[in-house]
């Protein structure tokens, strides 16, 4: 099964029963798979008129009680950033997979890239925090989609799966466990008395219930700055309350959210920080470097956002250098630099997209860093 199909299967396994999407290479296979599977599992698939509408439909569907997902890549993701902001503001649980391709603009539709890392976080205007995960294989496309839904439900936040064309089109064995072995966070709908019903609670925490349309609570939600009732309150003070909550419900729970995969990091001179398909390219360079006697560890970012500030900070000063290969002109390397505080060298191994790295280039960077 390829990564794109695994995304759709992961969504279904997580209880997603609504999918609105728009065709775009290299993510279309996910929509096709969901459309094919929808009738038999009692789900609904709709191909919307564009990506603006796709994510808008998700927001409506989420508040009407469904777990929902869409999938796209760069150009479509750009359109989605509009309502990604609304979803973040209205604390709507939904999952977007971005199967990245080369940009900017129409760029390289059939070729791989990791160029939307910053856009995922900073795409929508205004401050907001989202969660982003980065699978390195079709199996992880499945596993992380389930996890994306779980995080999305718990924190009531859009979760973005930042995969890429290579993983999306790569075929590998995917093990789908029996349903009772998959941990799924169910939709939590408010069911208390009407007078206590609040669509929001601004306490920088997760775990708050949604209010479902049709349950008689007559809720209101808006993209305007609002109070816990959901009504607009357009003051700077209220803006501070809302934005602080949106940011802190993710940032202050970063330790619970972040997942990393480490290999021989303790005692390493060089740590390669990588994610997605690039991690699997880097592994070859790391193996070759170790053969040359270089003490090199690997830190794979499974969770991209929130960024693992703490871990990089801990390692900075202990390691000589961080080597950061990524299929973009240097995006996450800035985060590494920021968290290394100048205590370790940070070396960017960038690539303008369209292909994965030549492992030799990463190996060279490791060698150079070790000098």
């Amino acid at each position, binding site marked *: 099964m390829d990564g794109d199909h695994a995304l759709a299967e992961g969504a279904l396994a997580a209880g997603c029963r609504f999918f609105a999407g728009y065709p775009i290479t290299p993510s279309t296979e996910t929509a096709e798979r969901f459309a094919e599977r929808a009738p038999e599992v009692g789900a609904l698939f709709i191909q*919307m008129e564009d990506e603006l*509408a796709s994510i*808008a439909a998700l927001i*409506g569907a989420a508040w009407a009680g469904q777990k929902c997902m869409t999938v796209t890549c760069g150009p479509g993701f750009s359109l989605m950033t509009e309502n990604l902001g609304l979803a973040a503001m209205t604390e709507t649980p939904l999952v977007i997979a971005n199967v990245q391709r080369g940009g900017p603009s129409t760029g390289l539709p059939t070729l791989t890239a990791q160029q939307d890392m910053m856009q995922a976080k900073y795409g929508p205007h205004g401050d907001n925090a989202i969660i982003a995960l980065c699978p390195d294989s079709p199996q992880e496309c499945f596993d992380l989609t389930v996890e994306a839904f779980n995080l999305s439900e718990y924190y009531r936040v859009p979760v973005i799966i930042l995969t890429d064309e290579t993983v999306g089109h790569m075929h590998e064995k995917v093990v789908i466990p029996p349903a009772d072995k998959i941990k799924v966070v169910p939709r939590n709908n408010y069911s208390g008395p009407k007078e206590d019903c609040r669509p929001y609670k601004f306490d920088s925490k997760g775990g708050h219930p949604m209010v479902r*349309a049709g349950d008689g609570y007559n809720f209101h939600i808006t993209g305007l700055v609002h109070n816990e009732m959901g009504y607009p309150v357009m003051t700077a003070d209220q803006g501070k309350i809302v934005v602080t909550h949106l940011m802190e419900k993710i940032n202050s729970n970063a330790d619970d959210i972040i997942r990393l995969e480490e290999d021989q990091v303790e005692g390493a001179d060089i740590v390669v920080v990588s994610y997605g398909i690039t991690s699997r390219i880097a592994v070859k360079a790391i193996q070759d470097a170790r053969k040359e006697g270089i003490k090199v560890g690997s830190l794979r970012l499974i969770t991209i956002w929130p960024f693992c500030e703490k871990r990089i900070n801990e390692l900075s000063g202990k390691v000589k250098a961080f080597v950061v290969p990524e299929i973009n002109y240097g995006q996450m390397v800035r985060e590494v630099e920021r968290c290394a505080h100048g205590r370790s060298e940070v070396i960017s191994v960038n690539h303008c997209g369209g292909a994965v790295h030549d492992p030799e280039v990463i190996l060279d960077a490791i060698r150079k860093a070790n000098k």
Partner: protein
Amino acid sequence: MSGVLRMDRMPHIWCPGCGIGSEVNAFAEAVKRSGIDPKKLVVVSGIGCTGRVAGYVDFDSIHTTHGRAIPVATGVKLANPELTVVVFSGEGDLTGIGGNHLIHAARRNMDLIVICNNNFTYGMTGGQVTPTTPNSAIASTTPYGNYEYPFSLPFLVDAAGGTYIARWTSMHARNVTQSIEEALQRKGFSFIEIVSPCTTLYLRRNRLGDGVDMLQDYQEKTILKHGADTRETAIDFQGKIVIGKFVDKQKPTYLEAVDKCCVKLVGDDYQLYGKTIPEREAEAKAEKERIAARRAAVLAEENKPAVTKVSAKIPVKTAAKKVAAKVVKKTAVKEATPAKKTAAKVPAKTAKKAATATAKKAAPKMAVKAVAKKAATKTVVKAAAKKATAKPSVKKTRK
């Protein structure tokens, strides 16, 4: 209005003389009379003055981003088909930035009710030109007159596949109520356009008086024509406004089409969100009966002091007359018809000539004459209207 409007959110933001308030009243009335379960009603709005409707109605309500009310409403409806979903927004929102969503929801016959307040202006941002602003009208971004061609919304939605299309003005409160009521009872894509005055911007900029003047204008300029060909519903600057119910037809909705396809594929076991088609149909039938009972109760209550109440089914003209009568009493405005007529004479010839020239280029030979004639008439009316508005001070000073 409590139970329908969020009284704790009053006062609302709308200007005195704005049509949106009376539209919301008509909507509230329609919801009450329709007998539908208010718990199962969701109102979705976009951005702008009309976009604020969602914040004042006491139902589940979603205030979305600019232009995206229809796709959000689509998501709500598809995620829970038991809900009745109403989109209440302005023409800038629905037909400008959200125009693509409008035509596609109509094309799919998505089971939504779209109420479009058409005031020819972007009110909240200060009176810019919109996709429906009549040619030659002044807006803040067309300070020398609008040189674009406007949409005729009934024609647009009809062409896209809408199955219920009506147009009224904000003066026709009872007809608006009745149309919304009808839409609430039916399935499929319903589109109700309500032409409405923006006193603060559109009327002021174009020196058309205030809201009351406009109501009288609506009384004089509307032509009731149920079933009118939607190609004939264009609105020229201060020209005639064709109103009525233009389209009311049956066609499978999007969800019905999905069901039909899937049941063919999966068989009678086919479920959507865990419910088979017969189960959903049984639920819908039971709900329909409850609605009918509630509606009967409301109507019975209404008919008790029946003598003093005006029936909702009163013909448009009478209703309009009544409202207009009040208006006329207040303002005692008379139209400067002679001035108009003379104004029309002068440019008629040249207009005809020009129209024939363009028509010859664009249209096939057979149609040239007819087009030329039509174009000429249009130009005449426009010219007349322009002339009339050129001396608006007369109207103004009368107050």
